[in-house]
């Protein structure tokens, strides 16, 4: 640069070089006093009691005070805010006296306009020849920018903490809601289970000379099933049974199941003819559920009567739209043909299919709902089907009612989630002569 090394003339001379010359002159004339007064930080010196003895122009400028207002009249702590003064008296001054110096302390000055001026303060004690403290020299740095930055950081942290608190609160509320929902669900489940139990016999009665077994699978514990069955005495000699499936699911289906069950029981006691019992049910359902939302059920109703020979049992059946019952035993499984009976409740005048068969010792009558045959199996998810059921039942080596239900229960469990509908099984068997003798012989 041109100006370096050149000996300047008098201030203001030199034409085009005037400003450079002026700067150079100013530099030379920059005395220690000038530096003290206009340093880029505040300087002040106080007596040991804090009375300001000397203060530079920079600090006076920040404070908006004149030298006359301050020197000899105010103490350092008078320049501070109330909070700053408190901190000065309790921490700053004692530490300074103890250590002889203290640096980088954040304090707030109070300006003549009442504004707060955040600053960083460093103080050193000047000692005399006999180590007695003479005065305190203090440097004050403007910390407004820095304080703003710190406040920004603090605000950011507070915002983050608030966000975290909000998130925690939201999570707590969600957990509470979930807990409540689970509680509600469990209560509902209990109510549904109790209601479901009222639709089925809790245990099957003992029928002399016969063995009875049943199974009930609910596709979803949250949805009331529409399958039903029952077995009950008609008089000293005969027993009635039924099994069926009401259309639909849920509370409405359950209400209809309840109506169906008690209607059939009452009808059977009045007139035990199977077709008459179904006709009575048909009339009740058709009157109750006529209209745009038709409801109906499929059902097989039957009456068991021990034969005069004391070995066999005669079964008379009527079916309304239900898959035929199977007679299982001796390596066979034959349907008792009841095709053509109409769904119960659909039309005011319905025809029901009737059939009769005789169960020999070792034979079991199986009634089932279509959840069994419509289960989706295998990789292609095809339906299990009636033929597969017949093959399975014919292949059973032990055909007692208990064995049949146990074997089918195992089969159903093997279907896994392919069993997507409710399924009811009712098996009524005449114990085989051998088995009966074994059981009867001590």
């Amino acid at each position, binding site marked *: 640069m041109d100006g370096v090394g050149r000996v300047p003339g008098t201030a203001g001379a030199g034409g085009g070089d005037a400003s450079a010359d002026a700067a150079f002159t100013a530099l030379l004339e920059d005395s220690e006093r000038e530096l003290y007064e206009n340093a880029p930080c505040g300087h002040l010196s106080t007596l040991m009691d804090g009375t300001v003895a000397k203060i530079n122009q920079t600090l006076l400028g920040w404070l908006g005070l004149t030298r006359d207002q301050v020197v000899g009249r105010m103490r350092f702590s008078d320049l501070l805010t109330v909070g700053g003064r408190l901190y000065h008296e309790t921490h700053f001054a004692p530490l300074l006296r103890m250590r002889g110096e203290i640096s980088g302390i954040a304090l707030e000055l109070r300006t003549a306009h009442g504004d707060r001026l955040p600053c960083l303060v460093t103080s050193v004690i000047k000692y005399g020849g006999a180590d007695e403290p003479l005065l305190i020299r203090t440097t004050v740095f403007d910390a407004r920018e820095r304080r703003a930055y710190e406040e920004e950081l603090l605000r950011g942290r507070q915002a983050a903490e608030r966000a975290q608190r909000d998130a925690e609160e939201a999570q707590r509320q969600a957990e509470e809601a979930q807990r409540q929902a689970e509680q509600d669900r469990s209560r509902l489940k209990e109510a549904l289970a109790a209601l479901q139990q009222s639709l089925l016999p809790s245990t099957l009665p003992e029928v002399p000379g016969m063995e009875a077994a049943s199974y009930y699978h609910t596709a979803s514990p949250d949805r009331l099933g529409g399958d039903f069955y029952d077995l009950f005495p008609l008089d000293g000699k005969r027993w009635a049974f039924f099994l069926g499936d009401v*259309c*639909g699911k849920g509370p409405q289906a359950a209400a209809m199941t309840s109506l169906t069950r008690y209607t059939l029981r009452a009808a059977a006691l009045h007139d035990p003819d199977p077709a008459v019992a179904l006709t009575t049910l048909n009339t009740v359902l058709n009157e109750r559920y006529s209209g745009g939302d038709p409801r109906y059920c499929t059902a097989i109703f039957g009456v068991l009567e021990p034969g005069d020979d004391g070995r066999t049992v005669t079964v008379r059946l009527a079916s309304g739209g239900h898959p035929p019952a199977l007679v299982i035993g001796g390596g066979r499984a034959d349907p008792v043909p009841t*095709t*053509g009976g*109409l*769904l119960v409740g*659909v039309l005011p005048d319905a*025809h029901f299919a009737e059939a009769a068969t005789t169960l020999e010792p070792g034979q079991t009558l199986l009634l089932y709902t279509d959840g069994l045959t419509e289960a989706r199996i295998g990789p292609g998810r095809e339906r299990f089907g009636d033929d597969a059921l017949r093959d399975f039942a014919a292949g059973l080596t032990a055909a007692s009612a208990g064995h049949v239900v146990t074997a089918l229960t195992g089969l159903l469990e093997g279907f896994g989630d392919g069993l997507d509908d409710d399924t009811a099984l009712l098996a009524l068997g005449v114990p085989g002569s051998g088995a009966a003798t074994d059981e009867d012989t001590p």
Partner: protein
Amino acid sequence: MTPFAITVHASEAGPVLRIAGDLDFNTASGLREEVRRVPLDPGRLLILDLTDLTFCDSSGISALIAARNRAVAAGAGIALAAVPPNTARILGIVGLDKVFPIHPDAATAAKTHETP
């Protein structure tokens, strides 16, 4: 698996609802809805074309009966067309083969209908 769908078109005898896919618990309400919506005047014939029906369970049967009730209430007739064998077997088991007139296809159903 055929996705469930119902398409509606007109024949000379009346509206034809062609049902494709499984008619079961999940889809039966769709048929009921369509049956409620379709215009049906007295003396007309509502034809349910089951050519593409892949499966029909008890809920599906229920929807078929609802369709019949709707037709009867409107003073119209109802017919099933092109019933697949497995559904025909179920209709036989539940006795509905004697309740619904059944035709080999929708055109035959429309032709045999006598306009009053």
